[in-house]
């Protein structure tokens, strides 16, 4: 197929374009982190209680932290080129293993949040636009504004108080019931049960953005000529809304979703913290304060690669939604 070929070529070109960006991010963060006082050895020694300077020097030599910065960077980059993300100073484990362990929970939370936020955002935005200037519109608009303006951790803590403690519907935190160690389908159910509150909390913030965007987008589309044409063709308002306007109105929302995914990866630090969700955000947070350079760079590498990939996927989806966009 010509189109498939074109898309493949486009994808590989975009991925190539992403590489210098990701490298730049690594180099930038490498130097930023080295600007900071203290290194991983200081933290380890500090936590350990005490350690002799000689022992700390040994550790630095072992981690390669005694070499000049450019050398450290080159060694790191060389390893990255061979897809070796190095060793976490703090965890004594390969970075790739640590990250992969945290990647799936991150992805799970991210995907469920996006689905919930985008799905409901579209629904509410559509409803608000269709019932423009009625009480429904007002309620949805106010709801969206309030969820946007409420600090995330506040919502999270309140969710726990109300739904875990008062109603007992959901567990307070974590990803699975670790007293039970479920297997198979029970485990899936258990994880889904744990996923509910963090997903709702995180998606409430983004839900507001999508709702407002969808509403505005719908209204804008309603004003366009092709809607008049559709009416002149004698189509029902239902079809005009759901077939003609909806699809066009979705386009900017899809673009926005692509941009938000990037923000989501980092933005979930607070939700991960509140719900003890084992995601990359918290890992990054912890490794920053532990000066676990390799680990933090690894997370930056993975998450920026993820952003590049998601943006690419969004663009490909976009090209299917909007035939005007030609890929390749």
């Amino acid at each position: 197929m010509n189109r498939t070929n074109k898309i493949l070529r486009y994808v590989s070109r975009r991925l190539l374009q992403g590489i210098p960006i990701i490298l730049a991010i690594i180099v930038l963060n490498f130097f930023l982190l080295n600007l900071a006082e203290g290194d991983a050895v200081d933290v380890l020694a500090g936590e350990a209680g005490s350690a002799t300077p000689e022992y700390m020097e040994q550790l630095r030599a072992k981690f390669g932290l005694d070499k000049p910065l450019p050398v450290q960077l080159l060694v790191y980059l060389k390893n990255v080129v061979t897809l070796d993300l190095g060793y976490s100073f703090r965890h004594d484990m390969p970075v790739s293993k640590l990250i992969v362990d945290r990647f799936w929970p991150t992805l799970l939370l991210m995907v469920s949040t996006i689905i919930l936020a985008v799905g409901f955002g579209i629904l509410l935005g559509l409803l608000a636009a269709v019932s423009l200037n009625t009480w429904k519109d007002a309620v949805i608009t106010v709801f969206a504004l309030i969820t946007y303006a409420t600090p995330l951790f506040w919502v999270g803590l309140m969710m726990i108080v109300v739904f875990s403690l008062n109603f007992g519907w959901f567990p307070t935190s974590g990803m699975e019931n670790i007293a039970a160690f479920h297997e198979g389908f029970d485990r899936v159910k258990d994880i889904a049960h744990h996923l509910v509150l963090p997903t709702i909390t995180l998606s409430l913030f983004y839900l507001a953005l999508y709702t407002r965007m969808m509403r505005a987008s719908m209204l804008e589309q309603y004003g366009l000529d092709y809607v008049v044409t559709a009416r002149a063709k004698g189509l029902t308002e239902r079809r005009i809304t759901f077939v003609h306007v909806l699809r066009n109105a979705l386009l900017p929302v899809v673009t926005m979703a692509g941009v938000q995914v990037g923000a989501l990866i980092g933005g979930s630090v607070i939700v991960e913290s509140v719900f003890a969700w084992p995601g990359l955000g918290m890992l990054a947070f912890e490794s920053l304060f532990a000066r676990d350079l390799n680990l933090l760079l690894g997370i930056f590498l993975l998450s920026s690669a993820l952003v590049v990939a998601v943006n690419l996927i969004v663009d490909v989806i976009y090209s299917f939604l909007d035939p005007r966009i030609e890929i390749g």
Partner: protein
Amino acid sequence: MTKHLLSINDLSILLPEGADRKCAIDNVNLTLNAGETLCVVGESGSGKSLTAKAIMGLLPAPHVRVGSGSINFGSEDLVQVSYERLRQIRGSEISMIFQEPMTALNPVMSIGNQIDEIFRYHASMTKLERQGKAIQLLKDVKLPDPKQIMNTFPHELSGGQRQRAMIAMALALSPKILIADEPTTALDVTTQAQILKLIKEMQSTYNSGVLFITHDFGVVADIADRVAVMQEGLIVESGKVDQVLNQPNHPYTKSLIAAVPSLTPRAPRKKSDESVIEVKKLNKVFGGEKSFFGFGKSKRIVNAVQNVSLDLFQGETLGIVGESGSGKSTLARCIIRLMDYDDGDVSIDGTNISKMGRAEMRPVRAKMQMVFQDPFASLNPRIKIGNIIAQGPLIQGKSKSEAEARARELLSVVGLDSKSYDRYPHEFSGGQRQRIGIARALALKPEVLVADEPVSALDVSIQAQILKLLDDIRIQMNLSMIFITHDLRVAAQVCDRIVVMRYGEIVEVGTTSEIFSNPTHDYSKELLNAVPGKGWEKENKNSASL
């Protein structure tokens, strides 16, 4: 009284409060019969489009609504019928085509689906039947390879093809009435001729009544059986096409018709041999640059201007005519160095300016000024009129008071009140803005004025005034002018010589009268033949000229 297909009786449409007048249309009466084409003609704001929309119940509610009157279609009054009934009528018994087919079609739905919808909502047919019918329709409107077209999206078609698809859609269920709202305004002249022909053919096939909204008397002459002329919401005159066009009664009709430029070229003027601008082998290619990191896709290459050479003689008006995409605007922008070109030379007063840097160019700039097409886009909305005009002299080193004096003087030259000095552009009408644009260009006392479609966005009566103004100042200031237009009527009245362009190349150069009376190139002939109202013109050799 014979039974009309459609009769509009005493129809008034109310505008929202705060609008400049109470009624968009006031007490309008119109009738339309089967097989007949009724042209409603008028300038912008005359209410002609709203009349058409009112028939379909497509007024932008709730702001604009029918105040009184009736629209009788068969035994029903379209003002009173239920929404559901109106919906049934739309698309099946009365259908409509619009001015801009690009925006009137849903950009993300295939042509096939957009036609298919009509059948799905108005007729019970199987999928296969619907498909067959749709392909047949596309064939009827003479679209090439209809099966293929079914799967294409609007942006993949040319303007003319899109309008054909629109027409196919409108005619899908053999409507009794076809309403065409300026269907050819956005199209090139040759395409326009084809679409008009198609509408005529379709009409005779289906015996529909056609309500045709237009501002162009040429088009009226070509297509109408009867004409209604509208002015500010009122029908000032109506009648058979011959009668209205050739023996108009109402002064407004008369003035409109008088303002239509004649196709007969103006009297040739004394020609100077002194060349002001000399263009040699100019080439301009769009696209093809590589991006910074070399990863970017190489863009499609368009040869916008190819190997163009021409001279502009002192005191003459050189017309550059061509359809959209012919490269005429690009050429003009290259000549005055608004765009860099790939190779070739441009000389002004014998000085080659093609290699000049920014600083060197600055004094030269004053010699060549430009008047732009869009009176709304060509003035910075955030700057006062006086400052807009005074800007040029200031930049060229004049003192503040000199620049202001010059600006005030020019305001009166272009016929504007000196109070305009402290106003902002949005307070002016299109024609007034175009005057301001001209004043700005004249502020630097240029030798050459490049006018890029200066009147194509204006109503015909305003157009005549602006053309007259340009002509006056050309004489008054001894200007040489490059005049870019797609409208051969305008070209005939303004230009001394004409350059015909197509696909970035000059196909023919000659004096206006040569080109009009004896075009040599096939394309020039085609262009001339496509000018609407040509027949009417022939009958009225002596019609008003400027």
